[in-house]
């Protein structure tokens, strides 16, 4: 039954995506994405309103792009299989997996019946499995969909995120657990992107065992921070999990926006200087860790700012004004920051970069 359903989904998906887009998957286009100097990938909207994913050099220059049928959001990369994935933005229904070394054609997967993607996910340590945050919208439960990279990314199972409105998710340093940011906001595809429960949000951070799907640890937020949506995560230099938040409460509150935790420990919020919290406009759009240099990078499109923190002390090292700041990823030194108006590091392209950048790390 499952296979049949997936087939139907894929067919209707391809119908939705349109012939022009399918044609763009012809090998000569798709394989051109692969270049040895590709360092980053990010989703974008072109000036004509079409969507795609691009690979970029260390300097932020576009190497090549592949068209996507609808807007994408987050990306992930497996250094083992050298595959990258772009997830449709919530409440999206597709994800495209690209081979960054060009050995195989891109694979498109469609969300299962009764599920949609939230825009983020990650690969297992061996690169064989892909995990995606998904919404079981009939019951309003966050789910992790599991896809088999050795079999055309067929959906082979799922387990709960143990929270509602999961968004970003990453694998812990030992590859054993998934660290999941359950943003706590209820949405339903019938109502588009409308947030349905702002007066009773349930944000949480969970650690889930990839082998069993069991909950290892769950951190809710205190009542006075119930409107603080925990949304993005990355792994720190010592394996700690860093998280960044978006606040849905009063605009003149000054909630903590960033924190970290490790397995078996409580959440630790960073106490940022008031002017940095204000500069971030209560909204961190993306977080990245430069593990080599021990740095945390944050961007806020609402505050038009990119902030660099010391991962050890939490001190603010740099606060740079970036109009429409979008994605952030570790660079050779510091961070690569992109913007909605086409800036990527010091390069300028005629696209609107989406909210996230993935580093195609070849190590």
């Amino acid at each position, binding site marked *: 039954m499952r296979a049949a359903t997936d087939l139907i989904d894929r067919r209707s998906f391809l119908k939705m995506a349109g012939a022009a887009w399918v044609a763009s998957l012809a090998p000569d286009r798709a394989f051109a994405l692969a270049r040895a100097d590709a360092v980053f990938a990010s989703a974008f909207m072109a000036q004509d309103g079409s969507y795609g994913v691009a690979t970029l050099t260390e300097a932020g220059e576009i190497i090549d792009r592949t068209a996507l049928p609808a807007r994408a959001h987050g990306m992930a990369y497996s250094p083992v299989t050298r595959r990258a994935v772009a997830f449709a933005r919530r409440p999206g229904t597709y994800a495209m997996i690209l081979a960054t070394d060009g050995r195989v054609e891109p694979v498109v997967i469609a969300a299962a019946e009764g599920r949609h993607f939230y825009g983020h996910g990650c690969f297992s340590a061996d690169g064989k499995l892909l995990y995606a945050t998904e919404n079981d919208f009939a019951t309003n439960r966050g789910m992790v969909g599991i896809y088999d990279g050795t079999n055309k990314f067929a959906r082979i199972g799922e387990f709960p995120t143990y929270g509602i409105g999961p968004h970003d998710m990453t694998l812990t340093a030992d590859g054993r657990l998934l660290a999941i940011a359950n943003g706590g906001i209820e949405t339903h595809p019938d109502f588009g992107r409308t947030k349905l429960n702002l007066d009773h949000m349930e944000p949480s951070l969970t650690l889930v065992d990839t082998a069993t799907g069991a909950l290892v640890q769950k951190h809710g937020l205190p009542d006075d921070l119930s409107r603080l949506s925990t949304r993005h995560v990355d792994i720190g230099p010592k394996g700690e999990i860093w998280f960044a938040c978006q606040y849905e409460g009063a605009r003149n509150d000054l909630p903590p926006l960033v924190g970290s935790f490790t397995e078996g420990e409580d959440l630790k919020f960073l106490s940022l200087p008031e002017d940095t919290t204000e500069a971030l406009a209560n909204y961190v759009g993306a977080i990245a860790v430069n593990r080599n240099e021990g740095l945390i990078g944050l961007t806020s499109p609402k505050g038009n700012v990119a902030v660099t923190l010391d991962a050890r002390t939490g001190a603010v090292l740099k606060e740079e004004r970036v109009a429409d700041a979008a994605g952030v990823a570790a660079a050779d030194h510091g961070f690569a920051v992109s913007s909605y108006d086409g800036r990527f590091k010091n390069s300028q392209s005629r696209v609107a970069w989406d*909210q996230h950048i993935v580093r195609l790390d070849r190590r």
Partner: protein
Amino acid sequence: MPHLRKLALALALSTFALPAVAQEGSALSPRVVNEAAVPTVMAKAVEAFIIPGYRNLTEKAAAANAATAKLCAAPSQPALETAQGAFSDLVGAWSAIEIVRLGPALEQNRFERFLFYPDRKSTGLKQVQAILSKKDESATDEARLKGKSVAAQGLGALEYVLYGTGAETLLSKEGDFRCRYGLAITKNLDTIANEFLAAWQKPDGVQAAWKHPGPDNPEFRDSREAATELLGILVHGVETVKDQRLKPFYEGTDDKGRPKLAIYWRSGNTMASIAGNVRGLKTLFDVADMQSLLPEDSRSVAGSADFVFKSVIGMAGNIDGPIDQALADENKRAKLAFLSLNTNDLLDRLNKDFGGAIGLGAGFSFADGD
């Protein structure tokens, strides 16, 4: 109307062909939000649109309550027709102001309690039918009704009472329970409408936040954030019409349609409500003087938006009669196709053209909670 089909086709070509040939480059000169103009626009939005819109809603809810009370006291065909007319007037008032889906509308589930839609799995319908068949007296008491499912206490439930299976019992005392349930719903809607109005009229409440963006403001720290919220009403309003009101029952020329998924299909208010939504958006655009946010060299953007606004409103208002009959009528289907294309066009005019010209650009719809 072959000309209409030609027109629809021409529009389809222009909508879909243009992006393909558009060249990258020729980027607009940098646009910035006209900060000085924003507070006046926000004040006008509150004073000339939101508060009058909710005041109108309270009046129509009170009228529906009075008409239903008369029907219950003395059932008759004229009394039923008056109550049904009052329901349609209430739908009209709601359709104009429901576009303001923020602030007080998001608190205490007020929006969903007023209107629960879509009801794809008929959850609401089943609850309403259960109340009617069991004659659940607790549903005739406003205070207890409020504690029931949001789907059993709003416009959808009232529509079923007045138009659904068994509505003819309202013509006699046989429909006494049904009528008293309907009456409790109208009271509930009246209460919610008054809560909306009170929240917006409170001098130091949400209206103060809208009128005076600034560092201590609980809603907007600056004029740019305020302008973003206002543009958001327009863009999300058109998206809602497109994705949540039209698409459920009609997806395009090849779609036979699903009339029973259409909003207000029982009372025949589907297209009037859709026209009302877009008329509400246009009224907000006009009375708040949103075109004053445009730089001098881009004032024509407002003109083109106005043209498409009028086209959508005119076409939606032009598709009359029950929606199942419209879906079976070739001429009306052509109008629906035209309406769908125009709605997509309107979204682009507001999101990309207007949003870009007033300095919000792509960032507007990008940074909305991801």
